[in-house]
Every structure is written in structure tokens, then in C-alpha cells.
């Protein structure tokens, strides 16, 4: 599941080669963003219906209302129960409005927390599927505690003792994405993006001009390969030729392969150990320089040890690659 060079396996190594070269070119990055937002790209419900033989969607946060931007429930996955939370955009105009363009409100995150609690009670694994331009910026959402809901959703995912896997399947922007993104394993579909803010939002703030989105995208470099390099995600899931929107079934098949492997690995760990490793992993993410105490000269001269967002705790031993694993395909062929 964790395709680092040391993990072995021909299939795995080939993927690593493919993604070691992170696109630095702005036009390449912009292309990835367009693919991540492609209107035909499979959304969480498309994956859920393909991964699960049956799925029961749950509604409402039991406090205020139901948020259609978040789908949450329990499904039958490879003959076992699985709790799922996903962020759902809409396909046509009517559904997009209904789903609020995949921008969740606090009640959506609270619904998610209900499902996390359910997973804990039943001791079943949890999978989150992330695809959002960000949490909804609205006056009502603020009144109902948007910030607190995101924070508490993250806290719930930090705490939960069940195995958790987060998959960024489309756009992962801002706290709206991270609210469901703190998991034992974080995976990314090859053409998805993960960033602190959408390129448009970043351009509006930093360039004071939302039309500079392309420029902002080049600076944020939110592609899967970059996130992998920075240690933010554990694995990049390849997509069918041309991208997931060309063949949703094949994309779901690839996701299934990675998901199964991740869950198998996680089930092998004791509960406490899973939580410990998860916390350790997120505790270490970041890049800073540290100088010797009381050595201002070093600061002025810039003598530093740079510790970049190094990947986390040593990855647990990875089982050999799936014999029947599909061929990795270039994300941008065809």
C-alpha cells in the first residue's frame, strides 16, 4: 500500500518511478486541477456503489438538519461492514445546488461524527472520500459553528480507535477537506489535488485577483505527486488512461485494491498502536528550521538544518504487491 522504494514489489516500484517526477510546470499542474474538477469525474457515491455490495445512507446530525454535501452511512464491503463518509458534489445543475457544490455545513461534519461514533461502537473500519472546494462560507454555517465543527471532526478522527483510511478522490481544499482527512492512511487518486485553499481563493488573497488562479496553482503545487513527496499522503492511486472520468469502473477497481490492502495492514495493528502511529504521523508534519539556543549569529548567517515534512513513522511492512493488480496507467495519456 505504501509504495516507497524500500517496500519492494515490481508493481509498486514502477508507480514510484512514475510519481517521483512531480509536475513543476504550471500548465501541467493546471491540467491536473482541471482533471480533479472534471464534471464526469466519479464522486464518492459513484465509488461507494461500485465498492460496496450494499449501502445504507444515514441522514441528519440529530441537532439541526441534514447536509446533502456530505454522504455518510454503512456499507457491505468485501463481506464486511464498513463506515463511509464522503463529500459529494453534484453532477447536474439541480443536484449541484442540492449538494451545495460539495461545500459542507457544520451539520454535515456532525453527521460524519455520528458515523465515526457508530464505527467505534461496532468496531468497524472507517473510510472517508474527500472531494470539496472547501467548507461552506455562509452566515448560517458560521452561526452554527463551522470552525468548531471542523475542529471537532478532526479531533474525532484523531481519537477514534478503529482503522481509518482517507482518500482524496477529487478536490481537497482547505479545512473542509482536512476535517475528514486525518486518518491512519491517507491516499490520493493520481489526478486529485490537496491544498490549503482553492487556487481561486489563494489568488484572491495573495494576488488580490481571483483570475490569477493559474499562477496560484503553480505556486501551491497541489498535485498528488507533490503531496506524496512532502509526506502528506502515503500512496498515490493510479487512474485509468485519461483519468478517472474515462472509466469509473476501472478507477473504482484501483481504489478497491489500495483500500483493501490498507485495511488489511491496519487491522493487523492493535488499537492503541494505530492511534499512537496516527498521532505521531500528524505530529511530525511540517517544515521548519531550528537553531541552537542563544546563537543569534547562526540565525543571521542562515546556518540551518532543514527538516522538511519528512514522512512520518516508519511504514509498517508492506505485503508483496497484488499479483492481479492492474497495470498502472499514466494519468495523462490519451
Amino acid at each position, binding site marked *: 500500500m505504501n509504495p516507497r522504494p524500500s517496500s519492494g514489489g515490481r508493481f509498486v516500484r514502477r508507480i514510484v518511478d512514475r510519481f517521483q517526477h512531480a509536475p513543476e510546470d504550471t500548465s501541467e499542474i493546471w491540467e491536473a486541477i482541471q482533471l480533479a474538477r472534471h464534471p464526469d469525474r466519479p464522486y464518492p457515491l459513484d465509488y461507494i456503489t461500485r465498492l460496496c455490495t450494499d449501502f445504507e445512507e444515514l441522514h441528519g446530525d440529530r441537532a439541526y438538519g441534514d447536509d446533502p454535501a456530505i454522504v455518510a452511512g454503512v456499507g457491505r464491503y468485501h463481506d464486511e461492514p464498513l463506515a463511509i463518509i464522503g463529500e459529494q458534489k453534484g453532477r447536474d445543475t439541480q443536484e449541484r445546488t442540492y449538494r451545495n457544490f460539495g461545500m459542507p455545513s457544520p451539520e454535515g461534519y456532525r453527521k460524519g461524527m455520528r458515523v465515526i461514533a457508530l464505527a467505534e461502537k461496532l468496531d468497524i473500519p472507517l473510510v472517508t472520500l474527500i472531494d470539496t472546494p472547501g467548507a461552506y462560507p455562509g452566515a448560517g454555517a458560521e452561526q452554527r459553528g463551522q470552525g468548531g465543527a471542523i475542529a471537532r471532526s478532526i479531533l474525532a478522527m484523531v481519537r477514534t480507535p478503529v482503522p481509518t483510511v482517507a482518500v482524496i478522490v477529487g478536490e481537497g481544499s482547505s479545512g473542509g477537506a482536512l476535517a475528514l482527512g486525518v486518518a491512519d492512511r491517507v491516499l490520493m487518486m493520481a489526478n486529485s489535488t490537496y491544498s490549503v485553499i482553492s487556487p481561486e481563493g489563494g489568488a484572491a488573497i*495573495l494576488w488580490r485577483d481571483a483570475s490569477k488562479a493559474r499562477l496560484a496553482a503553480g*505556486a501551491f503545487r497541489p498535485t498528488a505527486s507533490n503531496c506524496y513527496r512532502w509526506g502528506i499522503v502515503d500512496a498515490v492511486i493510479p487512474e485509468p488512461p485519461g483519468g478517472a472520468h474515462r472509466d469509473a469502473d476501472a478507477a473504482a477497481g484501483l481504489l478497491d485494491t489500495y483500500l483493501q490492502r490498507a485495511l488489511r495492514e491496519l487491522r493487523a495493528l492493535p488499537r492503541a498502536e494505530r492511534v499512537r502511529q496516527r498521532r505521531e504521523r500528524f505530529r511530525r508534519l511540517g517544515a521548519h528550521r531550528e537553531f541552537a539556543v542563544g546563537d543569534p549569529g547562526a540565525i543571521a548567517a542562515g546556518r540551518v538544518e532543514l527538516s522538511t515534512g519528512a514522512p512520518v513513522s516508519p511504514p509498517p511492512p508492506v505485503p508483496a504487491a497484488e499479483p492481479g493488480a492492474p497495470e498502472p496507467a499514466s494519468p495523462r495519456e490519451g
Partner: protein
Amino acid sequence: MSGKPIHVTVDRLRRFAHRPERPRRIEADDRSCPRCETHFRGEEMVRNARVCTACGYHFAISARDRLDHLAGEDGWRELWTELRAADPLQFTDLAPYPQRVRKAEADTELGEAVVTADLEVRGRPCVAAVMDFGFMGGSMGSVVGEKVARACERAVERGVPLLVVTASGGARMQEGVLALMQMAKTIVAFEAVNEARLPIVVVLAHPTTGGVWASFAALGDVTYAEPGALIAFSGPRVIEQVTREKLPPDFGLAESQLHNGQVDAVVDRRELPERLGRLLAILERPDASGAQPLPLQWAQDGADRAARVAQGVAQAIPAIPRRIVDRVTKGNGKSE
């Protein structure tokens, strides 16, 4: 001092020599209140904890001034000054990121947008993380995340409460997705404090928005807000742009967030040390002998500073508790 010779005419030297010494000013500039236009001299600002005495407007306060104010006669000692931002993305918007950091460092004389310290508030030891909006809008990059996380770990180690004062626009864009990850990192660190069964007190200053409000700032056991502070995930400008809603003028302000149930109390900055001291006293466990007090020397540093400030305090504001004034004028019992 550099070895450069100083060229001054004799005339000018003589003039300096005869000038009577001006009354010493505490380092801060004069300000006019933007709400009621009352004018304050620099030392008045320091005395009033940068709050307008006429209308109660809360000016921005730097992290170190805040710590001085909170500590009063007690001490505080800054921690991890040696942590500095890296540039993991080699980020450039209108200016390169390292250049922006250097400018912020020079403007604020801070290493980063948060100052972490061992602190005593009214004699109650705690570990504090105080954000400074002056440093790149108080934005949370890797260093802010790391310092907040270390503050949590130190609170656990010392067995004392954690105090966090926020003033931040949110995650630091220039560190991209790594800045986003600091939201997770700080929450993981908060969880360590929770597990150690130590209280977390959060004070929300103006403004607390974006990724900071959507992470650790929202997870205090007790949450105070300063009057007039903007507390929101999305600022009013963003909301009006995206939704075309017309927002009321008090949108997201501390007082309306109290009404919405998002904070526990709106506390005037001048009363904050007393309120925090009281709260920490309430929460102190009888078995808290594990808490390690600060070395005596630090308390003495604070007492000296407080004595200077308090000379003015005694006449200026009734809101400042008698207890400090008494303790300063009658001598600090601890330092003997």
C-alpha cells in the same frame, strides 16, 4: 554597536548636553482610538493594556506586550525562540516567501507569529502560546504549529494548564498544504493535554479566523473572547462574495458569537489576568503538587517590570485588581 565613527558637530553635542532629561517613555507610540478618537500617549496605552479607556475599544496588542500584561508582577520566560520558518514550496506570490518572513521578523522583532512561554498568571503557573497578528497576519505555518505543539507537550511535562491566545487570519498560504497539516498537528498536540487531564483555556483575540478557528482555537475547555474580536471560519468579505448575502454589522464578532453559543464569555482585556487567575485557581486540583513552579529569578524579572507599569496603574484604571498593586507596593512575597 558597530565601530563606525559618529559625526556630530560640536554645536549639536552641546545642545544635547544641556537638554533636560525627558521623562522616560515606555516603548509604544501614541494612538487615537478609531472608534471615539480619544488620544492616548504611548505609556497610557501600555498602562491600559491597549484598551481605550473612553469607549473600551481593544487595540491590537503584540504577543510580548500581552504576556507582560498577563504576567503582571509574575514572570514569563519565552521558549523556543530559535524556531524559524523554512520555505518548503519555494513559494513566490507578489514577493518570495523568505523575503516576507524577513520583513515580518524585522517589523515585529519576533521569530514567528506565536510566542510560547512559561507563564504565571496571578501566581498560577501555566504554559502559554500567544499569537501576534503583526507577524504575517498571525498566520499558522509549520513553525506556529510546531511551537503550539511543543507548548502542549511542555504543559503535560510540567503538569500545568495550557493557555492559548489566538490572533490569526488562518493557515499560512505560503506553506501550502503543509500549513493545512498544522491544523491536524495542533489538534493532535491538544489531545495529549486532554489525556493528561489538564485544562486548556483559549482566549480569542481579534481576529481569529480560518484554519486557526477551525482547529485548536475551537477546542479549549474554556473559551473567552475579547470584545469586538472577529471570530469566524470565513471572513465577512468572503461570505458576501460567495453567497451574495448581506451580513449584519456585528457578524462574527465576539458578542454575537457569545449569542450563538460559540464562546463562554466576552472578557475585557483589562480584566483578563484576574479572570484567568480565578479560573485556573478554580480548576487547580488538590493533588497538583506535580506542577513545577518557575525559578525565582523569572518571577523577579516580572516583578520589576510590573512595578514600573503599576505605578501608573494605581491611579488609572479601577479594573486592574488591587491585589497586584498591593503586592507590588508591599513587596513581592515570593522573591524574599
